């Protein structure tokens, strides 16, 4: 089985973002960047399928400027076999990313594409579902377990109120939730080896995809700051405040 796994370069999850003074966007200048945490889980899932003898090849794909090659190299150090960077000046919106990935899928013919369920910058939670629609493949979003059963992929999904298990015909799309696995760290020898693994750069034009804008970002603001309240000295004071001041109980 051949697996395509997607990785996105995003702000490191430990960094608190700041909005630019002109409200045009958030300020990412000189901010630490990293692989999106859900993409790390996607890479780990692919690597485990390879270690289990189910996957034969893992191709890691990222869309963005050349800086995202760093995240592709990370995926290669974690166990992906080769990388593809789709070179765009900026980060296109989800539908365009899905179209670029669909073009890569058409060329690479994987049996499974694993993506993170959302990126922690735009928090969209869309690309996997859109890619599935464009390819007319089945999808299992928010996956917490994967198993291959008689040629079908059985996926347990995290849904509101519990878990749901679906069986998908291959080829299929899976998006990862937090509990699918705990990603490993890349070892130094593997980081060195990853530098020699093939990394190909493609352009949207080569893939036949037009970077069309479907939305316009008008403004980015800091959220309304919540003011801290008071400290109460005892449980009885708390109950008193909730009853007479906040009037919520």
């Amino acid at each position, binding site marked *: 089985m051949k697996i395509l796994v997607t990785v996105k370069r995003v702000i490191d999850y430990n960094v608190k973002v700041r909005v630019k003074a002109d409200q045009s966007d958030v300020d990412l200048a000189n901010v630490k960047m990293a692989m999106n945490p859900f993409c790390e889980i996607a890479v780990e899932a692919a690597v485990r399928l390879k270690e289990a003898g189910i996957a034969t090849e893992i191709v890691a794909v990222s869309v963005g400027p050349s800086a995202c090659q760093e995240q592709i190299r990370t995926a290669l150090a974690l166990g992906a076999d080769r990388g593809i960077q789709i070179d765009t000046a900026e980060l296109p919106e989800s539908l365009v990313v899905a179209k670029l990935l669909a073009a890569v899928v058409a060329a690479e013919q994987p049996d499974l594409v694993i993506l993170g369920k959302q990126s922690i910058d735009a928090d969209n939670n869309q690309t996997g579902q859109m890619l599935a629609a464009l390819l007319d493949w*089945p999808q299992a979003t928010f996956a917490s377990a994967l198993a291959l059963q008689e040629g079908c992929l059985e996926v347990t999904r995290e849904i509101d109120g519990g878990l749901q298990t679906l069986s998908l015909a291959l080829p299929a799309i899976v998006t990862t939730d937090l509990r699918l696995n705990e990603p490993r760290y890349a070892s130094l020898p593997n980081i060195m080896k990853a530098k020699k693994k093939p990394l190909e750069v493609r352009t949207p034009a080569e893939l036949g995809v037009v970077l069309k804008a479907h939305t316009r970002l008008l*403004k980015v603001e800091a959220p309304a700051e919540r003011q801290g309240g008071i400290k109460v000295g005892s449980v009885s004071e708390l109950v008193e405040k909730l009853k007479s001041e906040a009037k919520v109980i």
Partner: protein
Amino acid sequence: MAILVIAEHDNRTLKGATLNTLGAAALLGGEVHLLVAGRSCGAVAAQAAAIPGVSKVLVADAAVYEHQLAENLARLVAALGKTYSHLLAPAGSAGKNLMPRVAALLDVAQLSDIVGVVSPNTFRRPIYAGNAIATVQSLDPVVVATVRASAFDPLPAEGGSAVVESLSAVHDAGTSRFVGEELAKSDRPELGSARIVVSGGRGLGSGENFALLETLADKLGAAVGASRAAVDAGFVANDMQVGQTGKIVAPELYIAVGISGAIQHLAGMKDSKVIVAINKDAEAPIFQIADYGLVADLFEAVPELEKAL
């Protein structure tokens, strides 16, 4: 052109988030239709027809829609979608699973988790775990969006009498199959729509200790939630998680117990009306946003609180 809202339901009852989504639709202006797709979902259709503000209920009742499989449902919604100005669904796991697929079939963008309506094509939505709010304009002929239920007032559930129309088209992609589900059974209110939420964090120390919170929640008629730290530690199931990667709640009262207040968690609850924090660490960041903070050992304070109510 009319607005189509996709109902969230379990073939028996309409989920409350649908009413909030209809509340968002009402701000757009225009006739509102509600789609109920499921199997043997007549009771849901009847509930849908009673909502004032809904002029027409479309019912697609077929086996292929029973489990809301995105492959089948997206085809149905996309086929209907071309004649509407907006397609909206609650931003729960069902809506998030479905709507991007619908949008891609229609070759339009999807706006996730909208929290405000600026104009019929311009919306506010949180990005970076709620640390920034983006105002986004759609340039597409159809707006496809998921709606954060807690950000909009619900429409009343009763008082209307919408026309009910059955849809005969059955869309079966035939590529996915429902195997089973394990749903938590609870008499407590749903986390997403509860008036009061009691949440526990790593400070609880174990899954067994969540019983303390359950007793308190039952006294208050509250739902029980958890921080990602408590979920990651294996104390409770992930569907109880409140935060950027879990549920977004905005109850009238949120009681955070043994929760430090990571950004991840705050993103899921900071719009609550009143926040109470109980934590033994006086420096915990949760106190910076809590209306009422109590620095105390939760194992003493929670039972005392429960008795005092």
